C-alpha cells in the first residue's frame, strides 16, 4: 500500500491504528489515515467493508478496541459524541420529527447553551445559506427528500463543527437530485473550508467530490490517494475492480523490461488524460500479452523482474474497436492488438458498451465507444457475433500488483 499522500493543509484529523471487532467479526483493522485541514476525504468501499465503522469511531458512537482518533492534536479516546465537535449528517437524516425546521437547526445551539441572540442570528444565516428561509416553520414530514437533506446539513453546519462527517447522505435521493446536490455539497464545502469526511459506496460520488479517496475493503485501507491516482493507478485488483470497470489482461514482463522509457513516448496519448496527471512521465515496462508487445505503465516505484508474470488493467474507455479488415490495414503503429468477438452490446446514451471475448484472454472485456458526432450510429455499431480487432495504445494499460 502506498503511503498516504499529503492533503491540502496540515493533518487536522489523524486516525492511528484503529481496530474494532464486533464479536468474532473484525470490522476495522489497523486503519491509519491523515486528513488535511479543509480537505474533502471520502471513505469508499462496498457494504460491510468497515467504512461506516471508521466514521462512527470518529464521531464517538463506537469506541475502538485499539488505536486512537486525534482531532487537532487532541486524543478523543473515551470522549462521548456530544463533546467531540464533529458534526454528522446521517444517511436517514435523523431529523427530529416533533420539531420544525427552525427548531431542528437550532437544536445543537440550544444543547451547547448559546444565548438567544446568537442562536437566532446563526440559525438565520444557516437557513439562508441552504436556501431554507421559506421553510423554517415546516415539519420534517412536510419536506421533500432534498429539503430534508438540506436541513440535516444545516443543523450541523450551524454549529461550525471542526469536522463534518457524512454517512451516505445522498443515497436516499433519486438519481437527478443526487447529482445536483453533489455539486452543491462540494461548493458549500469549499466555501466554508470545512474538513469533511464522507462515506459512500458510490465510486462516481467519491471520485467527483473528493480531494482524497480512501478505498476500504475487509476493514483495511486498500489505497489512499487523489481520485485520478486511484482510478489510473489502482494499488491492487480490488481497487481496480471496485473503482470503475476493469479489463484484466495476463502479461509477462519482457527481458528488456528495465530499459523502457516513459509511457507516452511512442503511442498516441490516451484520450482522458488529465493535464496535471503524472501518467505521461511515469515509468513503464514492455510486456507481452497474447503474443504481442505492449507498453504497460507502472503505478508506483515497484518494478517487475524480467520474465515476471502479472496482470495488466485496461479501462473500457481506452479500448479501441475496429472491424477486422480496417484494423489490419492500419497495422504500422505500435499499439497492441488482439482478435475478439462481440458478445453483446448495450446502449448507454453517451457511449455504447460492448462485451467482448478476446483470443487468449480468459476474462470477458468491456469496451466503451463514444457516440459519434455525426449521424450514422448504424454504420459505426458492431453487431453481436461480429469479428473485431481490439487495440490498446501504448500506456493505456497499467500494471496491477
Amino acid at each position, binding site marked *: 500500500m502506498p503511503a498516504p499522500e499529503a492533503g491540502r493543509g496540515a493533518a487536522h484529523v489523524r486516525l492511528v491504528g484503529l481496530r474494532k471487532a464486533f464479536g468474532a467479526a473484525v470490522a476495522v483493522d489497523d486503519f491509519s489515515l491523515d486528513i488535511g485541514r479543509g480537505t474533502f476525504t471520502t471513505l469508499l468501499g462496498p457494504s460491510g467493508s468497515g467504512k461506516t465503522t471508521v466514521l462512527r469511531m470518529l464521531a464517538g458512537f463506537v469506541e475502538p478496541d485499539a488505536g486512537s482518533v486525534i482531532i487537532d492534536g487532541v486524543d478523543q479516546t473515551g470522549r462521548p459524541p456530544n463533546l467531540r465537535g464533529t458534526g454528522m449528517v446521517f444517511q436517514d437524516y*435523523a431529523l427530529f420529527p416533533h420539531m420544525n425546521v427552525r427548531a431542528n437547526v437550532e437544536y445543537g445551539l440550544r444543547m451547547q447553551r448559546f444565548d438567544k441572540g446568537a442562536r437566532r442570528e446563526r440559525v438565520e444565516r444557516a437557513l439562508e445559506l441552504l436556501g431554507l428561509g421559506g421553510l423554517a416553520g415546516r415539519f420534517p414530514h412536510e419536506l421533500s427528500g432534498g429539503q430534508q437533506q438540506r436541513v440535516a446539513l444545516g443543523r450541523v453546519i450551524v454549529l461550525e463543527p471542526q469536522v463534518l462527517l457524512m454517512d451516505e447522505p445522498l443515497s436516499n435521493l433519486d438519481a437527478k437530485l443526487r447529482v445536483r446536490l453533489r455539486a452543491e455539497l462540494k461548493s458549500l464545502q469549499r466555501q466554508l473550508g470545512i474538513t469533511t469526511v464522507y462515506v459512500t459506496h458510490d465510486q462516481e460520488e467519491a471520485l467527483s467530490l473528493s480531494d482524497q479517496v480512501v478505498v476500504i475493503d475487509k476493514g483495511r485501507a486498500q489505497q489512499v490517494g487523489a481520485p485520478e491516482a486511484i482510478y489510473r493507478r489502482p494499488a491492487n485488483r480490488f481497487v481496480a475492480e471496485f473503482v470503475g470497470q476493469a479489463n484484466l489482461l495476463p502479461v509477462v514482463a519482457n527481458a528488456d523490461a528495465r530499459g523502457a522509457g516513459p509511457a507516452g513516448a511512442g503511442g498516441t496519448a490516451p484520450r482522458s488524460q488529465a493535464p496535471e496527471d503524472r501518467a505521461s512521465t511515469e515509468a513503464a515496462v514492455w510486456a507481452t500479452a497474447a503474443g504481442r508487445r505492449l507498453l504497460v505503465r507502472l503505478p508506483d516505484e515497484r518494478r517487475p523482474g524480467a520474465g515476471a508474470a502479472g496482470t495488466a488493467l485496461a479501462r473500457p474507455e481506452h479500448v479501441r474497436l475496429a472491424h477486422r479488415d480496417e484494423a489490419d490495414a492500419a497495422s504500422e503503429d505500435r499499439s497492441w492488438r488482439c482478435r475478439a468477438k462481440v458478445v453483446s452490446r448495450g446502449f448507454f446514451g453517451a457511449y455504447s458498451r460492448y462485451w467482448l471475448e478476446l483470443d487468449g484472454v480468459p476474462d470477458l472485456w468491456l469496451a466503451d465507444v463514444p457516440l459519434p458526432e455525426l449521424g450514422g450510429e448504424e454504420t459505426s455499431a458492431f453487431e453481436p457475433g461480429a469479428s473485431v480487432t481490439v487495440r490498446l495504445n501504448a500506456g493505456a494499460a497499467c500494471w496491477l500488483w
Partner: protein
Amino acid sequence: MTYGIRSLGRLWRYDRGLLLAYGLVAAFLLVFVVAPLMRVAFEPTVADWRQVFSTPRWRSASLNTLTMLVLSTGSSLLVGTLYAYAVTRARVPGAGFFGVVPLFLLLTPPFVAGLAFILLLGRRGLVTYQLLGLETSIYGWHGLWLAQTLSFFPVAYLVLRGSFAAIDPGLEQAARGLGASRAQVLRTVTLPLATPGLLAAALFIAIGILGDFGNPMLVGGRFQVLATAVYTQLSGWASFGTSAALGLLLLAPAVLLFAAQQWVQGATRERFATVGGRGSSLPTPTVSPWLRWGLFAFCVLVTLFVVASHGVVLMGAFTHLWGVDFQPTLEHVAYVLGQFGGLGNSLRFAAAAALLCTAVAAVAAYLVQRAKVPLRRGLDLATLLPAAIPGTLMGVAFVLAFNNPSFKLTGTASIIVIAMSVSYLPVGYRICAAAMDQLKPSLDESAANLGASKLRVLTTITAPLVRQALAAAFVFCFVRSVGTLSTVIFLVSFDTPLASVAILNLADQGRWGRAAALASALVAVTMLSIGLLYLVTGRSLKPLAESAHAGA
C-alpha cells in the same frame, strides 16, 4: 464486569445527569422491589413453615388457590380470546361498540364484579331471591370463578386484540390461497401467531388472580384462598411469620409462569418479528356465517352480563335496603358525599403513583433500551420483577420492610403511593420500552452529535417522541391504582383511608347500599379524571388501547 465499571466511570466523567438518574432508579428498585422481597423471603422461621404445611385449613386454601388459578385463568382466556377474535377478525356486527365494552370494564376496580354478583345472585340477590325465590347463594368457588372471569377477561381481550390486529391478513389469505379451509387457517396460522400474546395474557391474569384479594373476600364465602388467608393471618393475628410463608406459597407458581413467559417471549421474538408493526390494507378474510353469528350472540351475552352487573351496582347505590326494601333513596349518596376523604385520597394517591410509575418506567426503559448503560440486564429484570409478585405478597413484604422503627413508612401516604407505582411498574415499563424500540437509533445519535448529553437526549428527543406511550402508562397505572386492593389493604391507616378499602369493609359488613354508592362514585370520578386528562392533553382514547401491546 470491568467493562461495566469503565463505562460507569465514563458516565461519571461526562454524563453525571444520566448517572444520577440511573442511581435514583436503581436505588428505587433496590429499596422498594428487591429489599422487601428479600425481607419477606427470610421472615418465616422453620416452625412457621412447618405450621403452614401441617395446618389442614391452609392446605385446603393452597389447593383452592390452585384450582381457582387454573379455572379462572382458563375461562378468562377463553372468553377474552373469543371476544377479541369476534371483534378483530370475525368482524361481528357492531364490532366497534363491542370493542369498547371490555375497556369500560378495565376502568372499574375488579372487586366491583364481586359486589355486583352479591347484588344479583347473592342470598338476597335480585335474580336468585327476588325473581326465582331461591335461598341459595353464589358464595363459594363457583361464584368466585364467575366473578374472576368477569374481572379478568378484559385483560385477555386487550392483549389478544393487539396480537390479532398485528397479524398481517396477507398471511391468512396466502394460507387460503394454498388450499387451507377457514378452520385450518385459524388452527395453523392465526392461533399460532397469537401464541405469544396468549401466553402474556395468561401470565397477567394468573398473577392477578393469585394475588387478588377483593373478590375472594366478597364472594368466596367459606372457600378460602391463600390471599385471604394471608390477610386474616396478618391483620387478625399479627402473625408475620406465617403470613409471609403463606404469601411466599403464592410466589412459586407466579415465578414459574413468569419464567415460562419470558422464555417463550425470547424464543418467539425473532421468529415472529415479521408479524408486528406493518399496517396492512388488505381486508381480513371472512369467517363462516355460523361462526360469525355465533360469536355475535356471544358478544351480546357478555355485554348484557357486563351491563347487568354494573347496572345493578348503580341501582344498589339508590336503593334503601337491598333485598328487603327496594325503596329508592338518596341516603347512600349523602353518605358518599361525607366520604370525600377516601375518594379524594384514592384519586390523589393514584395520580401520584401513576406519575412516579411513568417516570421510573420511562427512565428505566431509556437506560436499558437506548443509553445501553452497564448492568442493564439486572435493571431490566428488577423492573419486570413486580410482574411476578402477587399483590398480597407485595403487601406483606412492604409491611415487613417498612414497619421497623428506624425506617417507618407504614401508615403514611408515601408508602401507599410507592406500593401502587411498584405494582404497575412492569406494565408501564413494557409500554415505554416498546415505544422506544420503535425509534430509530440515529435520532439519539444525531442529538448526541449535536451536543446533547444522554440525559438531555431523553428529555428533548426520546420522551417527547414517545409521549403517547407515556400517557398510556400513566392512564393504565392511574386506573389500576384507583381500584387496587390487594397490596394497599395492608398499608392503609386511619389517616389514609382509601375508597377501595372502604368499599370492601362496607360490603363485608353487609352495607350494600353504601358500598354500591361508593363504588359507583369511584368509577364515576375515575372516568371523569380520565376524561379531563384527555381534554387537557387533547388526545383520543388511543393510549389505553396502546397499553394492550405491553404484554404482547
